[in-house]
């Protein structure tokens, strides 16, 4: 037992010491990424946020990052490593880093942690995420009118609430403008794997889909669509502008920069507190990338109006009446979904076919 406590204290002491010496030094901000920074999607945008922090604060900050960190035991080590090396604030930017972040945060009470897309918080752990589903509604609105086969393919990553929410939101918006629309969801079980994503896109195209939505981070589906021709896609997490004007006809852009700058500032000012942030189109965390000329002008205009209405809070993408897939009532006429039900969403809305894997 004595060895145990000595080692434990030593670890803690180093943690404290490194936090204490950080006073005069620049604030050290760490980022843990799930993909490579060149993924052109999710991790790319988080890294853009990091660069924005560097640009904004100059010599006052020093940023470090580690890319392609697997979600699991390795993540805990990577985060510990950053904390040991004196990081004052660490952003862990994938859902699977949730438990590792909480575990490391317990050992380093003086280091601040920010976990993206999770739901576990502590005194020194905040969570943040974006209301991607707002962007999905705009995509669904465009997709529903662009499809000629009335078949929209959707590449899902993992069947977690965030992804299911996106599918529901896109479907409801598409259905609204095109009652005949059908969604075909393929689960890739990865956030970033160009080969798997390309296969999924190919399979969807062969099954007749002429518009493809993706909740994975690479540009492989765009490339597959380009090759097939006459198939439209949307940029995911990042603009994916290299596929403009078609197949990529618009995109959802995650803009983390303002949030990251705010949080770094809060640590500098000593005002940082554990919070739960869920920003959307209104706060600028979710952006809609340029809608290209491949989209008819009236559709584009309608999409921008929808974005406007969502951003101002005038319209909620989940506004009743909406039934669940099994036909039971979820939202009554005029009722909007609470954040709580959205955060735990584990069902399809009425009209979607197929089952959520479980």
């Amino acid at each position: 037992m004595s060895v145990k406590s000595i080692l434990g204290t030593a670890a803690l002491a180093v943690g404290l010491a490194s936090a204490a010496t950080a006073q005069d030094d620049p604030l050290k901000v760490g980022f843990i990424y799930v993909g490579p920074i060149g993924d052109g999607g999710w991790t790319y945008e988080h890294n853009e946020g990091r660069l924005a922090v560097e640009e904004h604060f100059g010599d006052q900050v020093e940023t470090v990052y580690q890319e392609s960190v697997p979600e699991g035991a390795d993540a805990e080590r990577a985060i510990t490593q950053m904390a040991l090396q004196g990081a004052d604030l660490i952003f862990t930017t994938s859902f699977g880093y949730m438990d590792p972040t909480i575990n490391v945060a317990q050992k380093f009470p003086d280091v601040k942690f920010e976990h993206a897309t999770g739901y576990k918080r502590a005194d020194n752990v905040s969570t943040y995420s974006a209301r991607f589903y707002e962007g999905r509604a705009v995509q669904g609105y465009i997709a529903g009118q662009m499809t000629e086969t009335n078949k929209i393919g959707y590449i899902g990553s993992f069947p977690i609430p965030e992804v299911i929410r996106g599918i529901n939101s896109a479907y409801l918006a598409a259905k609204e403008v095109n009652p005949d629309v059908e969604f075909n969801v393929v689960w890739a079980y990865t956030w970033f794997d160009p080969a798997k994503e390309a296969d999924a896109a190919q399979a969807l195209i062969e099954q007749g889909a002429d518009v493809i939505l993706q909740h994975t981070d690479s540009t492989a589906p765009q490339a597959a669509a380009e090759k097939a021709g006459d198939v439209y896609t949307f940029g995911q997490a990042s603009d994916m502008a290299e596929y403009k004007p078609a197949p990529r006809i618009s995109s959802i852009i995650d803009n983390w920069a303002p949030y990251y700058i705010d949080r770094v500032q809060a640590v500098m000012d000593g005002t940082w507190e554990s919070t739960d942030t869920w920003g959307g189109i209104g706060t600028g965390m979710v952006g809609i990338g340029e809608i290209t000329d491949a989209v008819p002008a009236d559709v584009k205009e309608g999409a921008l109006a929808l974005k406007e209405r969502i951003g101002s809070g005038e319209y909620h993408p989940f506004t009743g009446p909406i039934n669940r897939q099994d036909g039971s009532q979820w939202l009554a006429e005029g009722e909007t979904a609470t954040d709580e039900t959205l955060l735990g969403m584990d069902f399809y809305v009425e009209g979607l076919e197929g089952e959520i894997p479980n």
Partner: protein
Amino acid sequence: MIRLEKRPEPSSLWTAVTPVLAVVLTMIAGGILFAALGNEPVIAIRTIFWDPIFGEFAFYYRGQLLVKAAPLILIAIGLSLGFRAGIWNIGAEGQYIIGAICGAAVGLAFYPANLWIVFPLMVIAGAIGGFLWAMIPAILKTRFNTNEILVSLLLVYVAEAILAWMALGPLRNPEGAGFPGSRNLRQYEAAANLELIEGTGIHWGVIAALIAVIFAYVLLKRHMMGFHIRLTGQSPRAARFAGVNPNMLVIFCLGLSGALAGLAGLFEVSGPAGQISIDFNVFYGFTAIIVAFLGRLHPIGILLAGLLMALTYIGGEAAQSTLGLPAAAIQAFQGMLLFFLLAVDLLTNYRVRLGREGVA
């Protein structure tokens, strides 16, 4: 003129020297790579190879080295027995996954009962899970003469699909708000494979890896089975005359390597990883193949190779976050290690001669 001349016998000196030479060559080539990326090569190499063991935070990294090396060694030991006999189990990753699932399922079935028997049962279930998964290529090979390389490899993808199904379905944490992933076994005392001495990184998997090393050493040196394995690898015909039953050997080698991979998975899921999740596996099963060859298929060699491989991972991660080296550079660096090992391996079986071939 440089010529290669086949040695009558593999050189025992070069057998021992080539792994070290490969590491040195990797450091040099890696240094050039890091320099080309704008880093101080000496600092980069020191960050990878020296700092985790002797640097400022070595008290943390040393333990992590064991955590990372244990599954590699445990799996590689099992693989090396088959490899020696020419039985190629490439699917340890799948056996690792199935072992983890079976072990975790047994633990979760008892939740929340805090009985001492839970963890031993999980260990047994993990080993049996890996064993049975390896029996698929084994039996197909002995009955239908299928290729165990292909069957075991393809079963990895089946195992990954089962893993996803388990994380989303049967083993999903009922209190996890619909998110995939099982309960965290580390937070369930009876099933947790925690550090035995805090801060050292030593958990049951590390102990099991050490036992496996000793077991394999004794088996190969002292046991008839070890003799059969070595004989089959060197001369399958002679082995048959010596009374070796090739089918039994396939079953034994695949079964044992499967069981050890399953154990590695169980210790990982109940310890460092903590839970069954969709991407629980991180290619230990494939990396262990490199470890087995880097260690010359010799138990002690594998022990050292496992630690070295773990060092390149841990040091590589440190180099990423402190020096800003890209992850791809670290992967290339690890690839170089295998490349150089295979390249200098030539020296074991061939002699380099300078000058013209003599006229006979």
